[in-house]
């Protein structure tokens, strides 16, 4: 059988660098079952029989954080053959605290003192031989970054695993504690099979660790019995049990360090100097703003959006020009040709309407592709003559003529399907269902990768912890972490990388809260819809777009405050006692690896749900029962589709919100595929009756129109974002909680806007108003009720 070696150590001790250096590309990355904590294992490069498991970075083996519980359960239950305890050589004192607990588990331990290159550079001396004697385990000096001592540490661990000598700690607590521990062991631990872990169990019971009491199945009677031992010891030492144990561990470490470490006297380190500037009272916020702007500018506005456009409109669209050479010329030509064409259309329309050609100026319609808004421009007779000449002397511009044109995958697939004379339904399924679905998954990957380069860099260099330090004060009021700032910021561009950015938040509850609320911020895909509502219903009013952002921020704040007080987020508040690691320059390979892992996990974990739901929506949109039986429909026949029937069946839900007709319902459902689809669907549905904006204006009042907007901004995001939520929650129950909460919250806000809004738009007081006011009251109750779970 192979050997399993667990890597355990504090966060920022260089464990991940060591893991990468030991395993190379032989890695498996996933999650611990049912929780959001990352699980990593890999095969040792030098010997495939040696499996290395990378435990989460932890400071202790207490029962209070998910990472610690996951780690200690793995160590006790799975019993790896050996543990490599990775220690940051520049910070021995705190790192050894975890060591004092790990050596109590009975599993062979070897210590890897990492970052020895830095220790030596600082002029510090560590007497590893003495340290090894004091703690009673082999100690190896390494530098994961410089590939130093890597073989030695694995060899030592393998040797320890093969010898399998029971590990026992050299450290003894105060006499009265040891007395209590002996009692506890005698009383309730004789059943524990592996006697090597007995000491660990007895210390945990002494600390009143409820998770261990439960695990051992202790009766209430036994617990009470132990309690007497603990209480008498506490009385003797005048402190509580946990403090006694922690204090003694640190005192013990203090004596070891005194004997083994010689620190060179030194002034400020480079890291100190950087920190003096970066989190300086006056410069911190401006520097923060610049860093955030850079992250946003590159990963959302420029490189990120080029990448997304290329992936969505190029690879999964019509195609793209190699290196974008010729694109600009081609677009100019297309614009010119279309403009000429539209002028002629306008001329013909005038002729149709008036029975004769215009003598002077005439109008022609120009439709905005994104928002379906129609604008009328004026043309003169000369324009018409010029346009006719242009059309007659030019062909429709072909992209191939302007550069090296690479057709998109759909074009390629379509021509293939046409060549084999594929049935229309199958063709539709493949093109609009499967290829579009795969496109929806992969289209976001380039942007996610760009963002994750940044996040990996910010995390690895130590600035991410400072982000939390700077923003904590604002965000913790809403039950969020200072690190929630980045997901929300990125969320204004696209919710998917935004949700995935929540990965950097250590605390489980903060992370879940961030995942649930990030998509409330309007993303880029919602902008055309906002513009459409503003243009069609509110006559292009300028306040509509900013109001969407205010609504998003309002939703995040109220949700944070309300959810914080609910049972699912109850429990001890997360202690925000956070290490601010020393700044250091990350290695390129670690940054790239972290980027790739996260991008890949999105494809793998979010891909299925996105693909399936896209296919389902495609099917229901393009099939339906018509007078001539069940068949595939044209785009314009959406009124007969299964989706329309579903819309008709569900539209009653939205009656209290003022838009209880199937058109709005269907548009909301297609918005789940991609939010910009709402515009397209409404354009098709309302376009059938003439001018899209006019028909839409007639279908909504001010109140119902804004309620419709609010509902679609706040309800469940697109399938791709839902996939990201599912991936990050890693838990079906939490996934549905998030989606359910978002839809429910959106519905309540829509109700309030419509019912209370009617009061102000002159529709008077109705029964509905009562419900609207009741909903406000509920919201206020949720916001201001006492937090009964707070301590």
């Amino acid at each position: 059988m192979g050997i399993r070696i667990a890597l355990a150590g504090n966060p920022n001790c260089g464990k991940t660098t060591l893991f990468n250096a030991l395993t190379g590309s032989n890695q498996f990355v996933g999650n611990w079952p049912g929780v959001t904590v990352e699980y990593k294992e890999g095969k040792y490069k030098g010997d495939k029989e040696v499996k290395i498991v990378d435990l989460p970075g932890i400071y202790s083996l207490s029962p209070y954080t998910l990472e610690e519980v996951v780690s200690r359960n793995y160590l006790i239950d799975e019993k790896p053959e050996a543990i490599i305890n990775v220690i940051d050589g520049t910070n021995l004192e705190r790192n050894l605290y975890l060591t004092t607990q790990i050596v109590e588990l009975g599993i062979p331990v070897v210590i890897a003192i990492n970052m020895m290159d830095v220790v030596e550079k600082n002029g510090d001396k560590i007497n590893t031989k003495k340290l090894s004697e004091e703690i009673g385990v082999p100690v190896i000096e390494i530098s994961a970054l410089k590939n130093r001592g890597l073989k030695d540490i694995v060899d030592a661990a393998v040797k320890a695993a093969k010898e399998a000598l029971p590990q026992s700690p050299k450290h003894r607590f105060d006499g009265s504690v040891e007395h209590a521990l002996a009692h506890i062991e005698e009383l309730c631990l004789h059943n524990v099979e592996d006697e090597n872990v007995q000491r660990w169990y007895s210390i945990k019971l002494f600390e009143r660790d409820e998770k261990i009491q439960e695990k051992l199945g202790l009766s209430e009677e036994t617990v009470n019995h132990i309690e007497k031992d603990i209480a008498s010891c506490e009385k003797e030492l005048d402190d509580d049990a946990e403090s006694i144990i922690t204090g003694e561990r640190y005192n013990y470490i203090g004596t070891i360090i005194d004997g083994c470490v010689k620190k060179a006297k030194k002034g400020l380190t480079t890291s100190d100097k950087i920190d003096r500037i970066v989190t300086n009272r006056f410069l911190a916020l401006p520097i923060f703003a610049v860093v955030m702007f850079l992250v946003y500018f590159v990963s959302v506005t420029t490189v990120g959006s080029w990448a997304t456009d290329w992936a969505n409109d190029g690879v999964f669209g019509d195609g793209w020009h190699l290196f974008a050479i010729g694109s600009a010329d081609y677009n100019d030509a297309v614009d010119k040709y279309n403009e000429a064409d539209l002028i002629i259309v306008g001329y013909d329309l005038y002729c149709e309407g008036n029975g004769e050609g215009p003598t002077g100026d005439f109008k022609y319609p120009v439709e905005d592709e994104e928002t379906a808004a129609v604008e009328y421009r004026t043309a003169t007779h000369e324009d018409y003559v010029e346009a006719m000449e242009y059309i007659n002397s030019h062909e429709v511009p072909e992209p191939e003529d302007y550069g090296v044109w690479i057709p998109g995958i759909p074009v390629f697939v379509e021509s293939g399907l046409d060549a084999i004379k594929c049935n229309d339904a199958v063709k539709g399924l493949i093109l609009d269902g499967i290829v579009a679905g795969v496109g929806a998954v992969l289209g976001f990957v380039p942007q996610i990768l760009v963002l994750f380069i940044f996040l990996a860099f910010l995390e690895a260099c130590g600035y991410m912890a400072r982000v939390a330090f700077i923003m904590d004060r604002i965000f913790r009021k809403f039950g969020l972490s200072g690190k929630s700032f980045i997901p929300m910021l990125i969320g204004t561009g696209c919710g998917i990388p935004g949700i995935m950015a929540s990965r950097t938040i250590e605390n489980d509850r903060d992370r879940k809260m961030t995942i649930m609320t990030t998509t409330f911020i309007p993303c880029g895909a919602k902008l055309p819809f906002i513009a459409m509502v503003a243009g069609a219903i509110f006559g292009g009013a300028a306040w509509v777009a900013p109001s969407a952002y205010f609504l998003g921020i309002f939703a995040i704040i109220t949700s944070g405050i309300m959810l914080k007080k609910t049972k699912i987020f109850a429990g001890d508040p997360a202690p925000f006692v956070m290490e601010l690691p020393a700044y250091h320059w990350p290695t390129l390979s670690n940054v790239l690896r972290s980027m790739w892992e996260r991008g890949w996990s999105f494809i793998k974990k979010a891909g299925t749900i996105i693909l399936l739901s896209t296919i389902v929506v495609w099917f229901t949109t393009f099939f339906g029962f018509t007078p001539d039986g069940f068949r595939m429909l044209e785009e314009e026949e959406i009124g007969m589709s299964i989706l329309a029937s579903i819309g008709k069946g569900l539209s009653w839900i939205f009656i209290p919100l003022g838009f209880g007709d199937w058109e709005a319902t269907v548009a909301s459902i297609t918005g789940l595929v991609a939010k910009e689809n709402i515009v397209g669907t409404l354009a098709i549905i309302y376009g059938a009756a003439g001018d899209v904006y006019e028909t839409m204006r007639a279908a909504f009042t001010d109140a119902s129109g804004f309620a419709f907007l609010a509902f679609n901004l706040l309800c469940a995001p697109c399938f791709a974002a839902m996939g990201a939520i599912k991936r990050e929650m890693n838990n079906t129950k939490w996934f549905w909680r998030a989606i359910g909460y978002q839809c429910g919250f959106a519905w309540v806000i829509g109700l309030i806007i419509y019912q209370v809004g009617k009061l102000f738009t002159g529709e008077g007081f109705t029964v509905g108003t009562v419900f609207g006011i009741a909903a406000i009251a509920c919201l206020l109750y949720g916001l201001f009720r006492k937090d009964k779970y707070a301590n």
Partner: protein
Amino acid sequence: MTLRDVKVGDTVKVTKIDGAGAVKRRIMDMGITKGVEIYVRKIAPLGDPVEITVRGYELSVRKADAEMILVEG
């Protein structure tokens, strides 16, 4: 006196940790135990949390949590 009241630039000694449960344990796990010296480095630009040096490394503590840490000058 609690850690909250300590001025930036001062060094103090911990006498006791109040409170219970996860927060207290976390504070102690991070090395803030009875008798240890704490140097208050700076306050975050928005006024909270504070950055301290303890056992040779930097730690960020919220003022509300700092109130649980009793110190003497």
